[in-house]
């Protein structure tokens, strides 16, 4: 039994480590700040071939080329802004994961809030109307009495008072 447990644990460890078995080229920067910049940039930029992955993860050849280009620009001393501009001017805003807040993306940004407000308003209106309906029913329909009439309420009060006295 112990052997089995050990094997299972070993197997899980191997699976966990497989994420480190990356086949990507290794960029080593002499400056740890540059290393951090490279990681940040490649994490923040979209791969245009495998469009749900960032440049750090993607195995596409274009992603490898762009990683190489970014590393080159970092080593040449270019600031982050310049690197991002370089890519956006060639590939457009889509290479950034963050959609800009411009006229064509207003709907994308504002729709959730608008729908939330709309939903809450509808909910509010429905509750108010339902309330009114219940009140109307109780007050304006002489043929239909409320669940417990005034006379019956009095009777219940009396019975409860009597029970209290008997205690």
């Amino acid at each position, binding site marked *: 039994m112990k052997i089995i447990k050990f094997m299972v644990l070993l197997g899980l460890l191997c699976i966990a480590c497989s994420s480190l078995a990356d086949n990507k080229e290794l960029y080593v920067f002499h400056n740890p700040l540059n290393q951090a910049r490279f990681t940040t940039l490649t994490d923040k930029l979209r791969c*245009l*071939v495998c469009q749900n992955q960032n440049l750090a993860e993607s195995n596409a050849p274009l992603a490898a*080329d762009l990683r190489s*280009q970014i590393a080159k620009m970092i080593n040449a001393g270019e600031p982050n802004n310049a690197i991002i501009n370089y890519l*956006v*001017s*060639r590939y*457009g805003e*889509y290479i950034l994961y963050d959609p800009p807040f411009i006229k064509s993306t207003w709907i994308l940004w504002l729709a959730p809030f608008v729908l939330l407000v709309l939903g809450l308003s509808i909910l509010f209106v429905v509750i108010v109307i339902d309330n009114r309906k219940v009140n109307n029913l109780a007050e304006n329909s002489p043929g239909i009495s409320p669940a417990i009439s005034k006379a019956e309420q009095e009777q219940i009060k009396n019975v409860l008072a009597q029970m209290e006295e008997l205690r």
Partner: protein
Amino acid sequence: MRYFHYLKISLPLIIFLFLGYFLWRGLDIDPTVVPSALLNQKTPEFNLLSLENPHIRLSNKIFLGHVSLLNVWATWCATCADEYPVLMQIHSENSIALYGLDYKDNRQTALNWISKFGNPYQAIGFDKTGNTAINWGVYGTPETFVIDKNSIIRYKVIGPITMNIWQKKLLPLINNLERN
């Protein structure tokens, strides 16, 4: 308040029709298409050796003075193989200046290709590293740029050119650009 009642009943139908319309439209839209960031801008740097004759250097000058097409292709790209006959047909039926950008290819393989399947291109730039293609915002082959007489990029076809695209989109655009 009878109409309120009818409105509540028909609301699911209205929502369905509304959603259905947009989903129907969505069937024709390819969400992976990235529109070119270079539209209406001057052509980026194009400084490549010719595929066929490495002693000849091609530059942006090849785009000046006439309407041009730049087709990005490679022998390893299956879709480019599908597009090739269309390019050959366009080349045989028109006098448009069609240039090629051979993207990250093997020179000998590419030369074998054009000797076997024909050469629709006026000139082919050999981009071994793919760096020139990055300057043009290329992210997947085949891609084709329509460039006007003043070397301004006017249109980009993402994916293979079909006869349909040629007749409906490209030919009218090219005729328009040639007139002005």
